């Protein structure tokens, strides 16, 4: 046996190889399973698209086309009330900043109550964690609507919404950071005879502070993104301008505003990246 061409492989050769290495010819069970899962996904997709009335897409072409053209063709640009737009964007950033700051402050306290190594009372820890789950489980925009109902239209509702959802997110992430702390460093400080305050100051803080700062900066970035839409439910910021002008059919202005928001968010991401690097070096978190 030496050289053999593909062409010359006979049924007998195949049978012989199959006899020696039956598994090399594919496992019919695995093959069936694979085919079945693909079939399931495809059938599901077809069914669900029917369920969601994908056909509406075809009948929508006129409206969609009109909308697209209106968004691309900008008219009467002199009358667009730019001051209003940029005030809205500034308000969005301000809301995100205040909300994230408040969220950070409160999360600092909650995180130590939710971390296993700093909160030994299991029942209490779990209660705190479930509360955090509620803060996080309800979307920021839902909080926005809730606070609009509670305190009325305007940026205050937005700040409260960012505060509460950032508090939930950050407290969870902070508490994970606290739990992942290197215990040897803490013990080193304790071994010097330090009291609790000093243990926290020299054993915990140097380890968790960079992580906390980095997480809060990320949170600020993501809050600026999400704060842009809080206005859709009346909770202040640029979203209010977007929905007003959209309802008025001023689609070109909406497109302009959205483009501006995208640029501002890109700038904030870039700036926050710089600060992160300055505080914690290249290692990220």
């Amino acid at each position, binding site marked *: 046996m030496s050289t053999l061409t593909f062409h010359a492989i006979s049924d007998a050769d195949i049978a012989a190889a199959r006899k020696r290495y039956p598994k090399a010819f594919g496992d019919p069970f695995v093959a069936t399973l694979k085919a079945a899962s693909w079939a399931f996904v495809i059938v599901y997709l077809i069914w669900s698209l029917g369920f969601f009335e994908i056909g*509406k897409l075809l009948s929508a072409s006129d409206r969609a086309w009109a909308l697209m053209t209106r968004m691309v063709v900008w008219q009467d640009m002199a009358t667009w009330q730019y001051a209003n737009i940029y005030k809205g964007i500034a308000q969005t950033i*301000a809301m995100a900043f*205040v909300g994230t*700051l408040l969220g950070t402050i409160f999360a600092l306290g909650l995180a130590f109550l939710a971390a296993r190594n700093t909160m030994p009372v299991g029942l209490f820890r779990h209660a705190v964690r479930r509360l955090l789950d509620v803060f996080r*489980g309800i979307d920021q925009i839902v909080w926005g609507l809730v606070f609009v109902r509670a305190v009325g239209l305007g*940026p205050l509702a937005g700040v409260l919404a960012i505060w509460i959802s950032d508090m939930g997110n950050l407290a969870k992430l902070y508490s994970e950071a606290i739990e992942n702390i290197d215990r040897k460093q803490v013990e080193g400080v304790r071994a010097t005879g330090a009291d609790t305050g000093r243990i926290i100051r020299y054993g915990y803080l140097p380890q968790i502070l960079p992580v906390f700062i980095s997480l809060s900066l990320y949170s600020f970035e993501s809050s600026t993104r999400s704060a842009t839409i809080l206005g859709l439910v009346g909770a202040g910021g640029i979203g209010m301008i977007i929905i007003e002008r959209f309802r008025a059919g001023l689609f070109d202005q909406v497109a302009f505003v959205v483009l501006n928001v*995208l640029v501002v968010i890109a700038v904030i991401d870039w700036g926050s990246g710089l600060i992160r690097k300055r505080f914690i070096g290249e290692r990220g978190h």
Partner: protein
Amino acid sequence: MASVTTNGQDRDPVSLFEIHRRQMIRDRMIVNVTLGVVFLGFLLWSLWISRFTPDRLATGLPRIFEYFGSVMPSLQWDVLFDGRNEAGRFPAGSIGYWYNDFWKYLRLIWETILMALTATILAIGLAVALSFIAARNCTPFPWAGVLARRFLEFCRGVPEILFALVLVFAVGIGPLAGVLAITIHATGALGKLFSEVNENASMRPVDGIKAVGGSWFEQMRYGILTQVLPNFTSYALWRFEINVRASAVVGFVGAGGIGAELSHTISFYSDDRVTAVLLLVVLTVTIIDLVSERARHSLIGKESLR
């Protein structure tokens, strides 16, 4: 002891160290004070712009507690599990009374999950395809790579609910707009993550497939996809979690799911119906997070995703 200083000055090491230390502390002070001033200034500006003033807070806070008090269910232990009475109503204070619309909520939550699932599957397909074009080491044409990256950036940059707003206008009220909106946004987010994974893949298998005469598709399918599939799966699961949250709120602008009911209930009632529907949403989201998190961790260990 011989001097180790290079500045030629004739000082002992201790006082030199002191000089350096003071210089360093002074430098750091300047930086910290500047940062502090900038931070404070930004904070004051933000408080003013967002009108987050003490008097507003003072009038707002009591109203918040009042509101949350009014939406809490008033459950009573003696009738908690009672069924419908002769008039076909649940007695006040029972769970049945609190969750009078339970089946309606459940149907909407089911729709919400289906929306997220369909959108995730569609987005995975689109993102996989685009990620190979967008990844710098895979792209068949550099100009297509640039285009794909810009397109993904746009899709990722615009929030789902804004796409939903526009799509509701284009295709009408209903879940279709929501599915499409989430698909577009998730394609952007996943496409970027996928293309980054592709860029970190080893090119050796690709060279191998290229050398046997494989087409670009075959190079990607065998050379890259096999390497990145575990990461793709993990990211896709993670995205599904996010999409469930998104599909629960796109209804705010009429794009299907539980969102419309949610916004209607919150906007027009301030009683226990609000907590009833909110609690269901939180439960759904939490359960899906838990299940998906388990699946992800079993996939590639406890690797962090960000």
